[in-house]
């Protein structure tokens, strides 16, 4: 029996995302204390979705968040967020921390490295502000510096294990390379789809000149969810900053 949206039971093992439609589809939001993978092409709304998740947590659910940025610098992210009416600098004092982890372009590399430093720095930050949510935006930028596949896999498992030990609700955004046809395991970080507890795919294509944004929950361990692709739109007009209004059918 296909689980329709109405049968989903709201349970407290879920972290509300602040996006009504998405909470509806997943019966409450992202898995609490687990890791979610957010995959999408360029401009598919990954960072916006993730930022809204953090802002909602910080503002309304009393769950401070940390944004670990590997690609865009935090001043630029904060400036872009202004257009959604999110006053991030006010939040920044106590409940939303931005960590700039962009590798510098003239970085010299000699041999293998690991994410120990970042996790140690994050740990002290989490203790200090009691963070409950954490986002790794464009993690692939850092992972591609690792010398080989085994090092990449090792570091991802280290991160995943660290997230579960700290019972953080983790969100990792990842670039989907163009062709969805190649099977998941061929993609450079394909195995992450198998590792995480929840995977959400955002897509943005144009049909007959009309832009179509859609969101699909690919997997969600421990909960039923609406498996269909639901259209969503990014609503710039609302001053209050609700951005993704999922119209789940």
């Amino acid at each position, binding site marked *: 029996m296909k689980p329709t949206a109405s049968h989903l039971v709201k349970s407290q093992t879920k972290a509300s995302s602040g996006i009504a439609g998405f909470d509806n589809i997943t019966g409450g939001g992202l898995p609490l204390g687990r890791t979610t993978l957010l995959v999408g092409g360029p401009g598919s709304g990954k960072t916006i979705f993730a930022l809204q998740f953090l802002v909602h947590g910080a503002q309304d659910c009393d769950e401070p968040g940390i944004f670990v940025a590997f690609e865009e610098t935090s001043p630029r992210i904060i400036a872009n967020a202004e257009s959604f009416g999110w006053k991030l600098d006010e939040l920044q004092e106590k409940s939303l921390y931005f960590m700039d982890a962009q590798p510098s372009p003239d970085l010299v590399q000699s041999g*293998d490295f690991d994410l120990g430093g970042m996790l140690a*720095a994050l740990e002290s930050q989490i203790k200090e502000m009691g963070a409950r949510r954490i986002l790794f935006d464009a993690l692939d930028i850092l992972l591609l510096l690792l010398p080989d596949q085994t090092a990449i896999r090792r570091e991802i498992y280290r991160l995943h294990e660290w997230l579960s030990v700290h019972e953080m609700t983790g969100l990792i955004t990842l670039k989907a390379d163009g062709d969805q046809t190649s099977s998941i395991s061929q993609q450079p970080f394909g195995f992450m789809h198998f590792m995480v507890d929840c995977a959400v795919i955002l897509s943005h294509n144009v049909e007959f000149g009309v832009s179509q944004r859609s969101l699909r929950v690919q997997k969600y361990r421990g909960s039923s969810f609406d498996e269909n692709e639901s259209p969503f739109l990014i609503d710039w007009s609302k001053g209050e900053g609700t951005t993704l209004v999922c119209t789940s059918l």
Partner: protein
Amino acid sequence: MTQHQIFDFRLYVAGDALNSAQALANLTNLCRIHLPDRHRVEVVDVYLEPKRALADGIFMTPTLVKLTPSPTRKIVGSLNLMHPLLLSLGLAIQGKRIKTAYKIKRLQCVVFSVIS
């Protein structure tokens, strides 16, 4: 870069992780060969001083920072690839001179053993 310039290094390590231990060994080895008694090394363990890792923007361990002589350089990894390391520390040219010094020394030994 004068011959007597003191090299100030700071090596960020993550506890007893394998990469970090290798980096420390490689760095000590490099200083002994290339910078005999003109180097200072400070080792910072990010697990013991996480605040410092955060403040100095250290996310990958091990990370070697060459403080002096300027410009400061950041090298990430277990430092087992000698060439990029020497190059970025500006020791590569010296590296060649030291290689020739080795050759001369070896030649002297050969000649010495032939004579005696």
